[in-house]
């Protein structure tokens, strides 16, 4: 499990990085936290001629919360996301998704952008970004562009990203989620600390009046990881809970909508039928938790 030879490049600025990318295109692989690429290199499933290490691009690291918009730099480590109070207030789903990734050593290295770029359907951030209608920010020598999360993920490990583009970050409009009457949840079925979740569910709920006994759901968002080959939004489930207080009946509808929407792959110890059921159950739980949190 030793990587094949490659040339190593370590740009100091984003501009330098995109220029290198432009020059090399498919002959280069970007190295962020290396927690997944490192495995591909070790097994020689990835044998790039060039590796562009973007770990020194400090400009890509950090979290900004301003004017109802949260922006997370691509090189922000899971650890920082997990511990960010600002994120915890504005979009608590992101820290909750971050803290469930592996253990501390992996989270010290793994990055937001790396996970988005890898586009593993089981990945936490792709799912969270899909649930939150987030935006992915890309940059190339030609400038920046923005792609909505639901358009960014195209298929299993396949995205909108062009060969000469770099993910510089992601952003979320948090205006729909005022903290005093919104709740979020990221809940995953994971069989051991060291492995990937079998399925995860990301939910956000806004209610009209958290003080009321059974507040009405004004808006709901639900996305699932590993229930399809891309992060799976379930609009029917959202519709089912919006406009009324959450009830066992509407949760049942969430589960049914999820079952109908899910289209997972068979895996060892998790065939499609099981994953579909588990997705439905976790969808139900995430929505319920988000609602409880929104209701104070």
């Amino acid at each position, binding site marked *: 499990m030793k990587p094949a030879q490659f040339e190593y490049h370590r740009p100091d600025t984003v501009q330098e990085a995109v220029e290198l990318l432009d020059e090399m295109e498919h002959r280069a692989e970007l190295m962020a936290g290396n*927690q997944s690429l490192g*495995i591909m290199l070790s097994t020689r499933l990835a044998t790039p001629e060039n590796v562009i290490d973007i770990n020194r691009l400090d400009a890509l690291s950090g979290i900004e919360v301003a004017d109802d918009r949260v922006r997370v730099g691509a090189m922000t480590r899971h650890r920082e996301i997990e511990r960010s109070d600002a994120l915890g207030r504005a979009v608590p789903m992101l820290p909750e998704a971050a803290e469930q990734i*592996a253990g501390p050593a992996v989270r010290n290295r793994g990055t937001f952008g790396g996970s988005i770029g890898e586009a593993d359907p089981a990945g936490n951030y792709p799912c969270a970004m899909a649930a939150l209608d987030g935006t992915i920010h890309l940059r190339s020598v030609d400038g920046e562009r923005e792609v909505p999360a639901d358009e960014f993920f195209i298929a299993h490990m396949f995205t909108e990203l062009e060969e000469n583009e770099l993910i510089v970050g992601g952003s979320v409009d948090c205006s729909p989620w005022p903290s005093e009457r919104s709740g979020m949840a990221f809940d995953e079925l994971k069989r051991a600390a060291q492995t990937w979740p079998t399925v995860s569910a990301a939910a956000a709920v806004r209610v009209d009046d958290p003080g009321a006994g059974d507040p009405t759901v004004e808006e709901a968002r639900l996305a699932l990881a590993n229930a399809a080959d891309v992060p799976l939004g379930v609009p029917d489930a959202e519709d089912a809970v919006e406009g009324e207080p959450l009830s066992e009946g509407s949760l049942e509808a969430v589960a049914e909508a999820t079952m109908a929407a899910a289209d997972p792959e068979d895996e060892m110890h998790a065939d499609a039928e099981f994953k579909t059921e588990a997705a439905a159950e976790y969808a139900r739980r995430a929505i319920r938790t988000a609602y409880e949190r929104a209701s104070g």
Partner: protein
Amino acid sequence: MSVDDTPQTEPPTEEISLTVNGETVSAEVEPRLKLSDFLRREQGLRGVRVGCEHGVCGACTVLVDGKGVKSCLMLAVQADGSEITTVEGLTGDGGALHPIQEAFHETHALQCGFCTSGFVVATKELLEENPDPDRDAIEHGLADNVCRCTGYQNIYEAVERAADYADEGSHGGGDG
């Protein structure tokens, strides 16, 4: 496989300079060289154990600028300019065991010992962040390390004992 089948005779190399357990080290390395292999092979730090090379077992955990990192998933060239601490770097002058090492010994938190360096290093980071972890915090803090021998029972004890030693400002171990 790269397109070019003819083997490169001169592998690309990079100059690096870093601090390892307090000593400054300079080396010329192939960029593909893993930090784990660099530390084991070139620096003779065999306490960096390698159990999986895919980031699961945690045996290779070292501190890079104070943070726990799986050294099998970091390249040596990436450590350029960093400060690395391995389990060897915890042992004090004259071979005195660090309170964490002592606590692992006293509580029988190791059997075959192959996971031990990683657990000790991960415990160091954990206790620095949370000097008095409860069982949940220990579980969370050591979630990146696998032990096949101990069933983790005595590892909890070891971490708790090490935390007590840190509290007392010294450690009880007398047999260094």
